[in-house]
């Protein structure tokens, strides 16, 4: 099963439309969380919103995740060891109020298991090789020791 998510806040119709078109020829079942969108995808099961429990269940069952370049989606995929394709929202398309997702995407280009599509064309290419995407070999469930130490000291000194 391929699970698609646009995050908890905004629509991302460009992503949903591209995936819906591709899903017509996909051998995998595709399920999408589409946000507060008016779209009615034809080739995949969809819901606007999911509870955290439902979201976790879909992430666990998914073979591949496709998402906006949101940190919640990226970190969740890494924690669950699922390959993830990310497409950043762009300010110029009105998909977000700034381009920080574009900046995020650039930072993750060489990270194992994170497959970055900077535009629709790259997304379609990645979808064509969806059967062989690499996965992140695992990430700690917690922050870096450096950050944890800094915060522990901050708490102790207060």
């Amino acid at each position: 099963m391929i699970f698609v998510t646009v995050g908890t806040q905004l629509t991302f119709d460009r992503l949903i439309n591209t995936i819906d078109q591709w899903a017509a020829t996909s051998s995998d079942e595709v399920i999408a969380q589409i946000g507060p969108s008016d779209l009615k995808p034809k080739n995949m099961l969809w819901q606007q919103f999911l509870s955290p429990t439902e979201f976790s269940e879909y992430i666990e069952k998914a073979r591949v995740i496709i998402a906006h370049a949101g940190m919640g989606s990226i970190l969740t995929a890494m924690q669950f060891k699922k390959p993830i394709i990310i497409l950043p929202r762009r300010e110029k398309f009105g998909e977000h109020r700034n381009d920080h997702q574009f900046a995020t995407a650039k930072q993750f280009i060489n990270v194992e298991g994170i497959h970055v599509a900077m535009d629709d064309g790259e997304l379609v290419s990645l979808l064509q090789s969806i059967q062989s995407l690499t996965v992140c070999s695992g990430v700690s469930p917690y922050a870096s020791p450096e950050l944890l130490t800094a915060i522990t000291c901050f708490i102790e000194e207060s």
Partner: protein
Amino acid sequence: MVFILSKSKKILAIASGGGHWVQLLRLRPAFEGSQVTYVTTIDGYQSALGDAKCFVIKDASRWDKLGLLIMLFQIFFILIQIRPDVLITTGAAPGVFALRLGKLFRAKTLWLDSIANAEDISLSGKIAGPHADLWLTQWQELEKEEGPFYKGRVL
């Protein structure tokens, strides 16, 4: 022999649902030994928190003035109840309010800007960060003398 037992600290850990929340949870080892209360904007996260209390407040962005007002009052009443020693937030809007109000309650405050903000501090970080006792960025390139400081990342 005299044992000095320090009272365990009360922490209020607050973050919007989604990416901010996922990052906040990655800080949990630092909260060990303290009494933590969580605050977020999405219902349904509580099961991951064990026995820790979790308040769910209204989500609102800067264009929803009424929503922000409701959020402000909700946070105020949580602070009255909890009276934390320490307030830690990864953003966004709820963190801004909590940080400013937290100071009224004499809490020590920490703002950790999201790892998503790789090229510029977030808007809410720019508003709240200068008022935090510790203002952190997760990108060394964004570190400045007066803050934010870089002390590592959630990943």
